[in-house]
């Protein structure tokens, strides 16, 4: 690429542009050609930094090529087939065994099959199961099926839990002091009433109020402590007086 300045002097812009890293990689891979190849060579001859870069790129490229070639040379198919033939386990059925007996009868007798993988890959290969070993999948499927069945059974039993009425009115629960018509507890009884309220969370009530509608009045729900009840549970008392509120009689 050439450009012309204002005075008409021809000027090549590429000669001033140093080769990029990509161009250096292409140079190392032999993919650079033509005029740019010549320019890069000239730049390399002038610049020692570029030469060092090219050397490093050449080294890394050679390492990558070696590993790629060695990985491609691993014959997994033969190794797998040899392990299949040597597998004497009971998980194999007659259909699996038949071709193996026909094809590699000698290998079945000689159980010592050497792996064909490189030493560095032996550990990983030893951990992997044979390709036709579906026992893990079967166990996983069985576990999933059992877990799903158990979950459905539990869910089915939980489904018959206490139903909550839809749109039920909210209970208007007040403290005894707020209930004018309710008998006012004596000073000695007031703390005991408070104790009864405090024990709401301690003892399970034998009777739980699911919904209550006091209408225009104000009612109170008491939970009498368990020790005062004939049963082992707290006793539920709904107190609603005639003249508690609203003035209805």
């Amino acid at each position, binding site marked *: 690429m050439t450009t012309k300045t204002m005075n008409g002097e021809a000027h090549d812009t590429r000669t001033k542009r140093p080769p990029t890293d990509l161009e250096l990689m292409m140079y190392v891979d032999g993919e650079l050609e033509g005029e740019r190849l010549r320019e890069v060579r000239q730049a390399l001859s002038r610049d020692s930094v570029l030469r060092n870069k090219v050397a490093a790129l050449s080294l890394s490229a050679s390492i990558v090529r070696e590993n790629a070639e060695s990985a491609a040379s691993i014959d997994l198919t033969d190794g797998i087939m040899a392990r299949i033939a040597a597998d004497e386990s009971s998980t194999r059925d007659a259909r699996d065994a038949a071709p193996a007996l026909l094809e590699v009868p000698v290998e079945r007798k000689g159980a010592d099959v050497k792996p064909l993988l490189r030493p560095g890959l032996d550990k990983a290969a030893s951990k992997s199961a044979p390709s036709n070993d579906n026992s893990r999948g079967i166990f996983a499927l069985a576990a999933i099926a059992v877990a799903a069945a158990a979950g459905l059974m539990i869910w089915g039993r939980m489904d*018959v839990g206490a139903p909550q*009425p839809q749109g039920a*009115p909210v209970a208007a629960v007040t403290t005894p002091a707020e209930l004018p018509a309710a*008998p006012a507890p004596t000073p000695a009884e007031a703390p005991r009433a408070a104790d009864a309220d405090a024990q709401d969370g301690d003892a399970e009530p034998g009777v739980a109020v*699911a919904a209550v509608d*006091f*209408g225009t009045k104000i009612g109170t729900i008491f939970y*009498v402590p368990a020790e005062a*009840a004939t049963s082992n549970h707290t006793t539920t008392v709904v107190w609603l007086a005639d003249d508690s509120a609203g003035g209805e009689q």
Partner: protein
Amino acid sequence: MRLPLFALLVAAFGLSLGHGASVAHAEDAAVQADASVSMEIVVLHGTNDGTGIDPKIGKMPELAKPPFSSYNSYKLLDRSKQTSSKASPSTLKLPNDRVLKVSLKDVVQPAKKGDSKRYVISASIQKPGGSDFLPLLEVNAKAGETFFVAGQNHKGGVLVIGIKVNP
């Protein structure tokens, strides 16, 4: 080999589903069978006339505790056994001419083995004119447990209604 095993797993899964469905069906049937329940209803009159607790009431230690302890005397006015179901609620005329209506709404099977089933009971009290004194009270009660509805004025005292689901 894979196909039979897969079929076996599917069959086992189906059996478990069928078992769950049969269990649910059996529980539904039990709910239908228990759709009627016997209840004992006691009506007490609480006053402060100093006569003490009527021996006919029997053992009821709750009366010595708040809020019942605000009255020092309790007299048994009525004790009756009622049978209630979803279809036919039981009614009881109270001494103040109001009507107590009690109905069984549902029977809840125990969530855990060893627990007893619970009964969803609905109660309401209507005035003679038809208006509601207590429009709705819905409780979830175990058999043998008593709950009380109290506070109505009656002859200088209060009425205390105890409702117990018989086992």
